[in-house]
């Protein structure tokens, strides 16, 4: 079964890799071939593997997802506007449909200081030297990441030279509109020393259409640089979404991620952050809201390699219906990483007796002078709180919605971009039974 799926992707590669942007450039072809070999050697992971124990990717193997030869969908500017976040986030907007960059729907604002925001496909085709140092070398962390490297022909390239700040957030909108399509968007964010940028990596697609997004993101945060990374997973309800985020932090850098998992039938996000030098700060915030038969999985790994690093991780999830949540958070403090200050928390609210969550914190500490802790909870709505609200005349359904929303309120509150925060509030309220009542009473 899995072999068939593997073979399908290998033959897809043979069918279309010649048309990928950058093909003909030797290092790109080599990189793709090596990655495909890595994927072909492993195939898709099975639940027998520890890292995939709770998430069976078998739904991928039931389809024959194809790389679209072009986008057939007529996405309109109105549809894009509905997914955008208003004036404040419109300065830099890159729109991709079915894996193809659509300049007509995109907008690239003026940049100074040599900063680059570009379609990765255009860079691979015309100026591959720009991305070579960030793409070459090292095996991919998962079979999916390898598959992404083999197929990655489009995505975004964001490069900030030393000391450059891009004030307006960059919105990358990856849409899938074609049934049975697979896309492999690759996002590169390179912030050199002292640079600063905020990126919204936004994945969306139509409901009722099965498709597969296999995304990868590589972030390099140079010395004293700062990257704010919002990943909004708002895929259609029949989609499979897999994402691998790789973060490399240099001295005194700050990386802050918000992984907001709302859509998809099956979605898995891996975030691996390496704090490679002293004084790094890494913040991972996460929110997952799942209902029906959804499965939303996060695997995170923070590696403290050098002293005086700070990491803060908070993931909160709401699970309704027969939904499943998975959270595996790993923090590794290497021997040299003295004075590390790490805290990892995951809290889950189960709204139905059929909903399930598997949560697994792992702290691996090899240094002896560190401050590390974790906290995990799985619970239901608190009867005392419900009674308190009802005793004030608030009906049960509104009281439940209020408490459910309140459960994730702090994670949403950490979203610094106000228009995005408001959007997430709206989406979460829409998803909650009686959520609209909360707004009406506000």
């Amino acid at each position, binding site marked *: 079964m899995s072999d068939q799926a593997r073979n399908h992707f290998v033959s897809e590669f043979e069918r279309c890799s010649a048309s990928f942007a950058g093909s003909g450039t030797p290092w790109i072809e080599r990189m793709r071939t090596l990655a495909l070999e890595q994927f072909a050697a492993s195939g898709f992971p099975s639940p027998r593997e520890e890292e995939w124990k709770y998430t069976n990717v078998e739904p991928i193997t039931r389809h024959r997802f194809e790389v679209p030869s072009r986008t057939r969908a007529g996405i309109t500017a109105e549809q894009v506007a509905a997914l955008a976040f208003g004036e404040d986030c419109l300065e830099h907007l890159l729109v991709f449909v079915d894996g193809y960059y659509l300049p007509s729907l995109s907008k690239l604002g003026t940049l100074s200081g040599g900063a680059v925001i570009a379609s990765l496909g255009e860079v691979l085709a015309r100026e591959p030297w720009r991305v070579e140092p960030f793409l070459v070398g090292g095996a991919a962390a998962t079979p999916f990441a390898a598959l992404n490297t083999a197929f990655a022909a489009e995505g975004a390239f964001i490069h900030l030279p030393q000391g450059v700040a891009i004030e307006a957030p960059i919105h990358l909108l990856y849409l899938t509109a074609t049934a049975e399509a697979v896309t492999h968007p690759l996002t590169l964010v390179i912030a050199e020393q002292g640079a600063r940028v905020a990126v919204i990596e936004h994945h969306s697609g139509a409901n009722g259409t099965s498709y597969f997004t296999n995304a990868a993101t590589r972030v390099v945060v140079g010395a004293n640089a700062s990257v704010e990374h919002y990943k909004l997973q708002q895929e259609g309800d029949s989609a499979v979404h897999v994402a691998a985020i790789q973060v490399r932090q240099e001295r005194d850098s700050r990386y802050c991620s918000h992984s907001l998992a709302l859509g998809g039938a099956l979605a898995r996000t891996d975030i691996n952050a390496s704090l490679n030098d002293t004084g790094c700060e890494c913040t991972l915030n996460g929110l997952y809201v799942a209902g029906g038969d959804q499965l939303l999985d996060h695997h995170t790994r923070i590696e403290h390699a050098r002293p005086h690093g700070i990491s803060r991780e908070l993931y909160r999830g709401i699970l309704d219906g027969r939904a499943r949540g998975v959270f595996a958070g790993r923090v590794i403090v290497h021997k040299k990483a003295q004075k590390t200050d790490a805290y990892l928390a995951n809290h889950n609210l189960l709204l139905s007796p059929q909903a399930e969550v598997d949560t697994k914190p792992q702290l691996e500490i090899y240094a002896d002078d560190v401050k590390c802790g974790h906290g995990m909870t799985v619970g239901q709505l608190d*009867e*005392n*709180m419900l*009674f*308190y*609200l*009802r*005793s*004030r*005349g*608030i*009906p*049960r359904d*509104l*009281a439940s919605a*209020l*408490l459910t*929303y*309140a*459960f*994730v*309120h*702090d994670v949403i509150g950490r979203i610094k971009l106000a228009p995005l925060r408001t959007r997430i509030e709206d989406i979460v309220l829409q998803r909650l039974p009686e959520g609209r009542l909360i707004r009406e*009473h*506000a």
Partner: protein
Amino acid sequence: MISPLLSIRGLQVRVADKQILRGIDLDVGAGEVHAIMGPNGSGKSTLAQVLAGRESFEVTAGEVLYRGRNLLAMPAEERARAGIFLAFQYPVEIPGVSNVYLLKAAFNALRKHRGLPPLDAMDFLKLVREKGKLVEMGEELLYRAVNEGFSGGEKKRNEILQMVVLEPKLAILDETDSGLDIDALRVVANGVNAMRSPERTMILVTHYQRLLDYVVPDRVHVLLQGRIVRSAGQELALELEQRGYGWVESELAEQPRAT
């Protein structure tokens, strides 16, 4: 005689398989202030919570009429809308819900029930500021999460603030005086006295006589082992303060049991 606002007959309540109330009979008339006193574990808080609609407490016998209606058949939110308010002994912390949101949602739920349009944010804030003065509560507490990180005194004041904003017909104060220093007690007592009116009935559940120095009740009842064993005027509270509950207990032991 006009029928009382609240009439409790033979109320028996079990909590987690333990019989707590063993037959309560109590009438409280409109506009009256009653104090229910008793030692720890006598069932005072159980009675207060059952009246407010706590469902995990199982009523095994008896009935409660509130303004002629079968109170026990009403869910908690309906009782609140019908004018019942419980000031909790241990106010619940609700992270993520702001105090002002709760107040406004509760206030407008009542208005909706009465067929009135909701008060808008500005008018509501004006009202809350005005009422807040009465309980000497800092405005910053309005914007904090409900009771989260509040001191004991702040939590109790917050209960009184909710009471003065919601203007109930029957207010049940469950040990609102417990754990308060003398200043906070005075604030709470002022709030209670300001609310006292022929339109409003109050049941003060208390362990100590101290609150009754400020709020003079019409009737005092002693609750012991799940029954009301004594009812009298204010002088009973003073007697309890001087002689302790042991006096009632031993006097009761000398009497033959009714059941």
